[in-house]
């Protein structure tokens, strides 16, 4: 699946988008998997309460299942307007 990052999450991870091969069942599982791979993920995902997640461009939550999802987005709380 594609994983995309915005704002300081993007800056900490160092790329705006990447393809990830994963069998993670939920967003939380994906976060754990990525955090275990490299320190930069662990740093970006250290406080999930300051993160938001969207699945296929719809706001979602960390317990949501990933089956069938093509794009996962991680970002801080939005500051539009």
């Amino acid at each position, binding site marked *: 699946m594609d994983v995309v990052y915005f*704002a300081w999450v993007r800056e900490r991870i160092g790329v705006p988008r990447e393809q990830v091969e994963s069998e993670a069942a939920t967003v939380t599982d994906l976060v754990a998997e990525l955090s275990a791979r490299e320190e930069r993920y662990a740093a970006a995902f250290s406080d999930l309460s300051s993160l938001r997640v969207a699945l296929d461009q719809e706001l979602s939550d960390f317990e949501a299942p990933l089956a069938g999802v093509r794009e996962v*987005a991680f970002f801080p*709380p939005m500051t539009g*307007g």
Partner: protein
Amino acid sequence: MQVRVQQEGFDLGAESDGFAARVSGVGAIVTFTGVVRDADAGGLVAMEIEHYPAMTQKALEAIAAEARARWSLADALVIHRYGRLAPGERIMMVATAARHRKHAFEAAEYLMDYLKSRAPFWKKEILTDGRAGWVDAKADDEDALSRW
């Protein structure tokens, strides 16, 4: 209903006139325009607005459609810019039109509250001393959603 996500500026007067000319049977038109203001501590050089292109248009349309249905609006307009903006530049605007003033005001405030906290934009302040920082979401802004 019109929702536009764009890098270029917009003409507040022309947008207001165009919106007012398109609606009929209404008694009240409200516009809100957001402007880049200086940082609270001063010294803002620019505001960089990042967004999530694949999601933004869809998210704004959903917010505008919800406002339109909830307050029986004759029409609603949302324009939101991204990219690098200087202090004093206009970031975004919304417009609402309804039979009664209370509905037009409430719908405009609803749009703003949801744009603030549910539209995929992030702001970075670039300061004169070389520092730069992402604008934190305010607890107030999140709390504002609970009134709707």
